[in-house]
């Protein structure tokens, strides 16, 4: 139920009788949706509990507002709230039913004064740096040629959008503009929503550009919060920031994937590669033509080289073969000549020898004939002489023969074995002996032996 609707039906209020609880609920229903920003000074008494704190917000005239804040809100602030501190609180009023007290539920605290803001900045920077949010390694690369660009900034104000658009070259960019506040208490929430919206609804954008014109340190507050760092960190689309003047580096700049010092610089960064491409494309084209020509030239050179080389090789081969053949021919000739000469020599030698051999054979033949003749002659002589010798020897033998002695009357005595007896001492009495005569023989028995 919306409180406005209830308020419009006043008749119901008159007729109805509330219980206390019902009335407080009724009040809260009206109060809670009223989100407001209140500026004041933090009072002396601050009650800190582990999960929440109570403090008073005061005015110079002594007006007092009891505030309730969750610990988380203070943690996000980076610094603790201290008595006397000038702050702005964002939240809504609510009656605590158990106490019947009006409390201001603080959703967000903003610090006031450059001194404390700088301090807050340094503390948050240190803390987020330690958590790795500014790590260069986790930064998403910006596409070289961005075409689809999401722009988050204010339409009014210091002309960030105008600066950005006028400096953006005409390269067919598609710009999707999401208007947010860039200053004040509600700026942060709107910027966070815008970044999330682009990520959810146009995740194919090349880049998000978060820009804002220059301003004092305090006006840059939305860009120096932990929330903006976290949302930039978690964005899937890369983010370029161009916030304030060149000297201002906000936490959002540190978290961004690329920091352009100003909205104009952001536009120039996006132009850069397109400008270069415009210059480089004709160069690349020319280059490619030259390169291809170079390749052709190289191939042609190579072909000529190969051709020359081949011709040279073939010529060389032919030459070497020719030489080889010539060599072989020469060699063969030489050999033939040598053999011919040898042959001639042999032939000559042979004919010379032939006659010599013939002569030798003839000589030998003649010699042989003489020898044979002399041999024949000798043979006849020797035969004659041998015959004569034999005749003489026969005569001698005839003269010496025992038969001749026997004829002359001698006898020969033999024992029964035919052995001629020359000495009778070996004979025995009554042994038979044979006595041979020239004509016949006698067998006798020994009677007596004389010695």
């Amino acid at each position: 139920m919306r409180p406005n609707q209830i308020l419009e039906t006043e008749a119901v209020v008159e007729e109805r009788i509330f219980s206390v609880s019902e009335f407080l609920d009724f009040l809260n229903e009206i109060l809670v949706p009223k989100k407001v920003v209140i500026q004041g000074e933090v009072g002396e008494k601050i009650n800190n509990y582990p999960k929440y704190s109570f403090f008073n917000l005061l005015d110079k005239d002594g007006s007092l507002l009891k505030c309730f804040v969750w610990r988380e809100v203070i943690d996000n602030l980076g610094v603790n709230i201290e008595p006397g501190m000038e702050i702005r609180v964002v939240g809504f009023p609510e009656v605590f039913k158990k106490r019947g007290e009006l409390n201001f539920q603080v959703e967000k605290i903003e610090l006031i004064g450059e001194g404390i803001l700088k301090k807050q900045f340094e503390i948050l920077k240190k803390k987020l740096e330690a958590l790795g949010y500014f790590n260069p390694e986790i930064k998403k690369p910006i596409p070289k040629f961005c075409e689809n660009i999401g722009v988050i900034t204010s339409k009014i104000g210091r002309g960030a959008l105008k600066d950005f658009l006028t400096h953006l070259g005409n390269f067919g960019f598609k710009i999707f503009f999401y208007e947010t506040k860039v200053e004040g208490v509600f700026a942060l929430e709107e910027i966070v929503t815008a970044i999330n919206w682009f990520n959810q609804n146009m995740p194919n954008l090349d880049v998000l550009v978060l820009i804002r014109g220059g301003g004092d340190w305090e006006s840059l507050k939305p860009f120096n919060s932990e929330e903006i760092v976290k949302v930039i960190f978690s964005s899937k689309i890369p983010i370029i920031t161009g916030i304030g003047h060149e000297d201002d580096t906000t936490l959002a700049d540190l978290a961004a994937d690329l920091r352009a010092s100003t909205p104009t610089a952001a536009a120039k960064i996006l132009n850069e590669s397109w400008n270069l491409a415009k210059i480089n494309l004709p160069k690349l084209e020319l280059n490619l033509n030259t390169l291809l020509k170079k390749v052709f030239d190289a191939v042609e050179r190579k072909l000529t080289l190969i051709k020359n080389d081949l011709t040279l090789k073939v010529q060389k081969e032919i030459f070497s073969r020719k030489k080889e053949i010539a060599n072989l021919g020469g060699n063969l000739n030489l050999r033939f000549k040598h053999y011919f000469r040898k042959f001639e020599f042999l032939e000559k030698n042979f004919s010379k020898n032939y006659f010599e051999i013939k002569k030798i054979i003839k000589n030998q033949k003649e010699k042989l004939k003489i020898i044979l003749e002399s041999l024949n002659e000798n043979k006849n002589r020797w035969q004659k002489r041998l015959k004569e010798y034999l005749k003489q020897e026969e005569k001698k033998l005839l003269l010496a023969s025992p038969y001749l002695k026997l004829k002359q009357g001698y006898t020969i005595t033999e024992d029964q074995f035919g052995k001629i007896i020359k000495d009778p001492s070996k004979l025995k009495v009554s042994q038979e002996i044979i006595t041979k005569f020239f004509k016949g023989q006698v067998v006798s028995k020994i009677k007596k032996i004389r010695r």
Partner: protein
Amino acid sequence: MSEEKFNFTKAYKEIEEINEWFQREDIDLDEALKKYERGMELIKKCKERLKQAENKFEEIKKKYLKDE
């Protein structure tokens, strides 16, 4: 939406790669011709894309956002 298919970044990168490729020693002629043709085609497309100079501006309407 046909131009969506053409990605300038990719095309430009490929052109640069082709140029680099040509710096090599020992280039095959067939491949060189293919690369050359591809390079020229991409250069033509990139030049055409550069001619589409007009930027488009669209504001995201808050009403539309709230309806979502």
